[in-house]
């Protein structure tokens, strides 16, 4: 196991800047998830840690070693690919043994390690099968088994669950998390799915356009997004945003709707800003802002209501079941203590 340090790493393909100066510190044994929309550079960054992509500038350290010029095979890492990348001409046992055989490990050791990995992942019955005879979830497990037998310093996962169906994805999510808690190997995991990031990570790195937007624990990002991008990217359904300006004790939207604020950040006073509130922080309340109901989506445990406020659709997530219909007018109110304010130009957070 080892810590991974990424210091001012950049990557250019010709004139395209894919990664534009990224710094991330990953502690020994930590489970870190790189998350962001497609094209944000997260997979490229992972492949740079793996050694599959060269580093244009900056430095990547695994343990105490700078690995910029170390070939993948000498980095002591294991990687799980999105499409599993199992060797189709080898059975499960041989797939897992491949790296050990290349290292000329003694037969008895190979066997012990394979059996251990197979037990951990519940693959003992499948050791003689070929990849084509396995289901998607089983293939994914074999791919993880191939990583485990090597007992590497770092596990790298490149969107490992995106080829699985929704139900299997949820159970594999729990399995990977459990695996990490048992093995305590440093893990870097790439996904575009923010729910995966929220549920699995100890630390999330939100990336966008080749830079890091914010690094932090899942709930920290949720409760204190550093900027508008993180605020909208993390959370489902995503945060409601309204443009307008800040006045003393209130926020006035472009359409003139007045929304109370708990504290007015002095620097924001009179400036154009963006008001953000999470759907679950909105409540039905007689003294709230009136709006016309556009959509009602009951899920059983909660009800999602889309209301038109100031000409914009605003999503409310209500815990209770409500007797309202499309076209009704209801009043919603945000808890002023849970409101976020962002700078309209830079997108930076204005509230503490």
């Amino acid at each position, binding site marked *: 196991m080892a810590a991974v340090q990424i210091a001012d790493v950049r990557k250019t393909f010709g004139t395209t800047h894919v990664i534009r100066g990224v710094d991330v510190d990953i502690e020994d044994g930590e489970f870190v998830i790189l998350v962001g929309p497609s094209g944000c550079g997260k997979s490229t960054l992972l492949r740079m840690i*793996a*050694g*599959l992509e060269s580093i244009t500038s900056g430095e990547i350290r695994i343990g105490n070693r700078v690995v910029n010029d170390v*070939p*993948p*095979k000498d*980095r002591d*890492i*294991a*990687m799980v*690919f*999105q*499409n599993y*990348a199992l*060797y*189709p*001409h080898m059975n499960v046992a041989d797939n897992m043994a*491949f*790296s050990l055989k*290349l*290292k000329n490990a003694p037969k008895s050791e190979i066997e012990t390690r394979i059996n251990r990995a197979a037990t951990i992942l519940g693959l003992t019955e499948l050791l003689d099968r070929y990849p084509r005879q396995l289901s998607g979830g089983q293939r994914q497990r074999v791919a993880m088994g*191939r990583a485990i037998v*090597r007992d590497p310093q770092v596990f790298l996962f490149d969107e490992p669950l995106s080829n699985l169906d929704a139900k299997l994805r949820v159970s594999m999510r729990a399995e990977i998390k459990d695996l990490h808690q048992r093995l305590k190997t440093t893990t870097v995991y790439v996904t575009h799915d923010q729910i995966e990031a929220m549920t699995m990570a100890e630390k999330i790195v939100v990336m966008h356009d080749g830079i890091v937007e914010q690094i932090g624990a899942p709930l920290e990002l949720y409760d204190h997004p550093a900027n508008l991008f993180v605020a909208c990217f993390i959370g489902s359904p995503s945060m409601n945003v309204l443009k307008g300006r800040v006045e003393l004790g209130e926020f006035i939207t472009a359409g003139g709707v007045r929304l109370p604020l708990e504290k007015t950040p002095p620097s924001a006073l009179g400036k154009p800003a963006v008001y953000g509130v999470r759907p679950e922080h909105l409540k039905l309340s007689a003294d709230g802002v009136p709006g016309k109901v556009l959509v009602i989506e009951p899920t059983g445990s909660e009800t999602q209501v889309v209301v038109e406020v100031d000409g914009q659709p605003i999503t409310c997530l209500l815990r209770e079941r409500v007797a309202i219909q499309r076209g009704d007018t209801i009043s919603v109110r945000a808890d002023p203590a849970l409101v976020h304010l962002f700078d309209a130009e830079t997108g930076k957070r204005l509230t503490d």
Partner: protein
Amino acid sequence: MSLAKIFRKLGLVFAVFLIVSPALLFFIWMVSLSVKFEIDNGAYPPILIPEHFAWKNYTSVFESNNFLLYFKNSIIVTGAATLFGLIVGVPAGYGIARMNAQKSAIIIMIARMTPGLSFLIPLFLIFKGLDMLGTLWPQIIIHLVVTVPIVIWIMIGYFETTPIELEEAAMIDGANRWQIFMKVAMPIAKPGIVVSFILSVIFSWNNFVFGVVLASRETRTLPVAIYNMLSFEQVSWGPLAAAALIVTLPVLILTVAAQRQIVAGLTAGAVKGG
């Protein structure tokens, strides 16, 4: 079945017969010729199935003309040319596919398209100067012009369809380039190797022009030997057809046996995952 359906089916059968008949009738006539006596072969109107079968056409092929020697020559030339073709062509195809070296692929294609006669004469002089003409080497070497491009082009198609992630996984698993090629890329491309093997055998086995120029009496391959049967004696259709069939037979068996793989191999490059 309605009448329209029956007509449609009959139409299809007729169309298929029309298209296939040149190849089929030619073949049937060859078989017929090979089992008839000369008198029947010259008869008019032509006889398809004779009253008396002339099996001796076949036995005489083996008895005369050093047929077994030529058979052996053909096997050595085709076998060696195919073997060298695979040894050179499979890694070359891999390299071209992985490095995306389309230009080199086209150059190889041009080598294949150049008419053989244009370089046969200079090569003849070179082989003469090297004093190699009495051996099978000139033919083996020149048959590489046939086998290497076939192998390379088929293998490019195969290696291009192998997912790159497999090789990246092997790279991370600790394999070097050579090990990736030997232990991952090549085993996966096995069907492609089989197809290129078969096609290169067929093309090399049937090659005629190179043999005519480069072979001496002892180093003839079968197609050349048959040609010589035509020129030395009067045209004796029976033995000629029998010899031609015997020459075709190994290739024919190979083709029928591997038909499915050949079709799969020829389309592999065209349709991803096809």
